């Protein structure tokens, strides 16, 4: 087996990857290590501890894990990711891709255009548009529904940001699934239809087995993005009373508004760990699937 397919030799190969490794070290590894260090100190944005931070060991971690605000923030984040990414974006994105797959022309282009537009607009612009939509006094939604004074962002903060993020990010899932559905041979679907399969059975037995890897990749990407999403800050600022304070906003509020940089760094590191767990779980699922396919292809009976 040839290990040096390009014929570069060890030295030149190293020279090729070195710039990339240096970039990763400077912008990824070093900040991550620095975060771990800061998380062990009582570093603050202002005051005495800003000039002379002291190492306080695991105090930040114990106080974060014991802080009801952190735990509720964690649950809010799980609900936010589950509601807006897994159910909202992936579900709606697939539904749109499925409905539009056989359509051509104006309708498809119009729908795709609108969905894409919500994805490519800058976050702050979108945030203020939605603020104007959901505002209690003079908001567009209240004017449309005839419910003046209904405080969407105060009475249903989590639901508001879930709907917002679903609207915002569906485009990615829709495009990814559209591309995936192109790979499903129409003959398979036709055969299934002839055999009397209804839509649900077609999806379960024909489509999903074929696009499973796309689904997992999509879920991995959007749940990681959503987990680290800061845009809802523009809508609610984490309020009222922390009822939409998902983890990225929690970190911002304690580290920059409250000035507790050490605690903020500790929580950031916890978020990093949670992200790693997420990513590993998805990657395991993906790899398990690939291995199954490989064994099926190699050891399966001749067709």
């Amino acid at each position, binding site marked *: 087996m040839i290990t040096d397919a390009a014929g570069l030799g060890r030295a030149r190969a190293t020279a090729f990857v070195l710039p990339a490794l240096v970039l990763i070290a400077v912008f990824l590894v070093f900040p991550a290590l620095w975060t771990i260090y800061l998380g062990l100190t009582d570093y603050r944005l202002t005051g005495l501890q800003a000039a002379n931070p002291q190492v306080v060991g695991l105090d930040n971690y114990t106080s974060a894990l014991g802080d009801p605000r952190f735990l509720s923030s964690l649950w809010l984040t799980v609900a936010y990711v589950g509601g807006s990414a897994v159910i909202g974006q992936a579900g709606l994105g697939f539904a749109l891709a499925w409905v539009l797959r056989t359509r051509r022309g104006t309708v498809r282009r119009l729908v795709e255009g609108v969905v894409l537009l919500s994805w490519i607009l800058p976050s702050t612009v979108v945030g203020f548009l939605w603020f104007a939509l959901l505002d209690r006094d003079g908001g567009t939604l209240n004017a449309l529904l005839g419910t003046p004074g209904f405080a969407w962002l105060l009475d249903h903060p989590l639901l508001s940001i879930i709907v917002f993020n679903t609207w915002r990010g569906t485009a990615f899932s829709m495009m990814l699934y559209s591309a995936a559905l192109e790979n499903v041979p129409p003959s398979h679907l036709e055969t299934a239809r002839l055999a009397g399969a209804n839509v649900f059975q077609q999806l379960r037995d024909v489509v999903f087995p074929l696009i499973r890897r796309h689904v997992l990749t999509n879920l991995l990407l959007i749940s990681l993005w959503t987990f680290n999403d800061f845009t809802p800050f523009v809508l609610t600022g984490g*309020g009222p009373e922390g009822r939409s304070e998902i983890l990225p906003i929690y970190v911002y509020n304690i580290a920059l508004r409250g000035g507790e940089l050490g605690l903020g760094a500790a929580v950031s590191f916890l978020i990093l760990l949670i992200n790693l767990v997420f990513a590993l779980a998805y990657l395991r699922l993906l790899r398990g699937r690939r291995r199954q396919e490989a064994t099926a292809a190699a050891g399966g009976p001749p067709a």
Partner: protein
Amino acid sequence: MRPVLIGAALLLALAACGTGQPSSPGSVTLTIAANSISGGKNSESADWIRTWVIPEFERSHQNVKVLFQPSGVEDEQYKTKLSLDLKSKTGADVIDVDGIWVGEFAQAGYIKPLAEVGGPTVDGWEGWSQIPQAVQGLGIFDGKKYGLPQGTDGRVLFYNRTLFKKAGLPEPWQPASWQEIIDAGTKLKAAGVPVPIQINAGTAMGEATTMQGALPLLTGAGSEIYTTGKWTGASQAMKDVLGFYQQIYSKGLGDPKLQQEAKGRDKSFAQFAEGKIAILAESDYFWRSVIEPKAGVAPMAERDAVVGYAKIPAKQPGGGIRGQDFVSMSGGAVRVLNPFSKNPKLAWELLAFMHSAAATKSQLAGQVRISARDDVNAEVLTADPMLKYIAEEVLPITAYRPPLGVYPQVSVALQEATAAVVSGASPEEAAVAYQTKLERLVGGAANIAG
């Protein structure tokens, strides 16, 4: 397509860099930063810097270019930006800060005493003799002068005379106790006023909750937040304050949602201007900068005829600090020098120039306020009866916040206590939670009284 875009982005980036560079070789650039912006927050102060300070200073200092770096955001956001600027040893040369941030900025090494940065000319400045000791205190930490005060303010209750007439309430109105405020609110509500009383609460309003709500009430209950080395914990006075909040917000005399909204304070201003809020506790800033008929952010054309003002009463007559019948709180902004300035001596010249009698007078021409300088106040304050009232009736009974680094964190704990009461907790629960947070902040129960 793509190379064109990248080229355009590069051009933009280069142009953006260009504005920060000296305009010609040998010339010096100084920058002023303030949380004010033309057409928005503290508009008149931004206009004054742009149209008076910069041209006048540049005229007397050839080869010096002065730039203004405006902001128009919440004070907490502005403070975060400044801390990050100073932490990375950059930022403007002359910086506008709230007097209460001086302590924590100094402790962090973000600012240095004026004499250390600006040199020996600082102590000989002519203006010191014109600034009263109490006002100088706004820029002093640990006995050292860190900033030049711009002026001071006082808190009162503003009320809408038209709504008061509608509710059959007396005019002029001066409540003598908290109960009389509640009584007026009840009558106003019966007369159909949507929001009778606005006393700031909650964390969204930040320091405005502490300064306009919790602290004036606490002094009215006879207690200061910090005296003789101890912080006030879950004392009876604190429970009285939270009980007053409960009376307002659980009986529909105030709007609890307004306290939670991200832009609640701005909305409360707009609602007062629209005649939806009848009584609102604010500093004279509200009078001169918010409902000011021309330049205000929520202008009221008929301000002088419609809006009345009254001193904030103690819980009951004689129940305030020092046995007072009425109370207030004062603060004020200061300007500091950036210790990392490349031209510290010149920056001091600019700072001193901005606080000269001529500059102060020109600023007050745009907006009358209580400046730091006695010589200027004597000349201009007669022009506005409201500010004369603050200077003569309110400043003698006022109190200041403790100039300690930990104060802003205590302030947040107070805001959280009011937030809890507004969203339905009992005053006792909120006071106990406040005490727990306070112990963590100030290093144990030994530093807490009551």
